[in-house]
């Protein structure tokens, strides 16, 4: 029961950073599978069933633009930040910095209280 709850809480925590992580890797053109590999190599595994639909949603919201490329094998859809997406990324990155600083202080305070 507690284990189920903690799994869900951890999922929610990770879900909050997925969009920012994806945007951070799309300053250059990438296709879905390549992006997932790139994120995984940097320690952030995102389920494929979550990532690929997310790319579509971000595109429909105007944060990404995409194009089909067929030069290297089968046709693949490549995504990159749009102008709006770049602004969104800057805003989210700033929020993330503020958040991590605040959380760092909170967690540090908690550790000091434990000593």
């Amino acid at each position: 029961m507690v284990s189920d709850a903690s799994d869900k809480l951890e999922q929610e925590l990770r879900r909050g950073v997925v969009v920012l992580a994806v945007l951070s890797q799309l300053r250059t053109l990438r296709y879905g599978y390549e992006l997932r590999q790139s994120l995984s190599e940097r320690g952030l595994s995102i389920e494929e069933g979550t990532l690929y639909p997310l790319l579509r949603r971000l595109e429909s919201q105007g944060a990404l633009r995409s194009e089909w490329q067929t030069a290297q094998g089968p046709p693949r859809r490549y995504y990159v930040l749009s102008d709006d997406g770049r602004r969104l990324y800057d805003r989210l990155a700033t929020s993330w910095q503020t958040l991590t600083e605040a959380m760092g202080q909170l967690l540090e305070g908690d550790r000091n209280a434990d000593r």
Partner: protein
Amino acid sequence: MLTADQLIDTYVADVTRLLPSRQRADVALELRTLLADEIADRPGSALDVLQDFGRPDEVAARYGTPVSVIEPVHTRLFLKFAVVGSLFFLYAGLMRVLSGQSGSGTAIAVFVYLGVLLVIFAIAGWQRRRWPSTAAWQPHPRTERFSRTGRVAAIVAWTAGTVVLFASGRIFPAQVFTFTDDFARLRGPVLLSWILVALGLQVILVMQGGWRPWSRTAELVLNALMCVLFAWVVTRPIFTAGPTDEAMRNAMVLIAAVTIVSVASRVWHRTV
């Protein structure tokens, strides 16, 4: 045994048929390539990869913004209305059957009620999404939970009803208010006893000017008892005259059906 390509085709078809038609071809082409890449890169069977990818309906839902027919914030209220309302119609149907009438329309009444309820909640959800400001909380005075005037009115109404039921034969000379012997022997006295106890409780409530924990429980028990009692009383004729008997038993069915809604609502509030 399906090949990897056949599995991919089946899976992609299952996902894309749940998407808007304008999206299908594009998503199918992209998803097919992505799945082929995943399968080529991972050890294990293609089926494992596809099952890990997720159920097609869940994956399809992630491609868009799923719309709920009933908003999650309304679900509990919807269930409450659905259960209590269905109980009302089922109980009314049961009472009609017990009183010798046809209960064939009960199932239809329940389904029509649930259908109408669904439409009302769907409209409420749409309104909430379309104009979120209409759902903002507004300050309002707290409603009075106990009305002494209302209780006095209830005592008067129940006393008048009891007089009509038990003394009308003496008041009016006509035979239309004559009890059957069967009712007068057992069901009548039991019913009268219940009414007197219920009236006594109402008088105590008015004198105390409010609820106590014991009086809330007592009223709940008495109301539940009334539903059972009425269900028993209407099983056989009360008056010898047919039209009077039918009118009285129909009135008792209605009162009991309304009361069971009230009982169910209070039980729900106590347990949820």
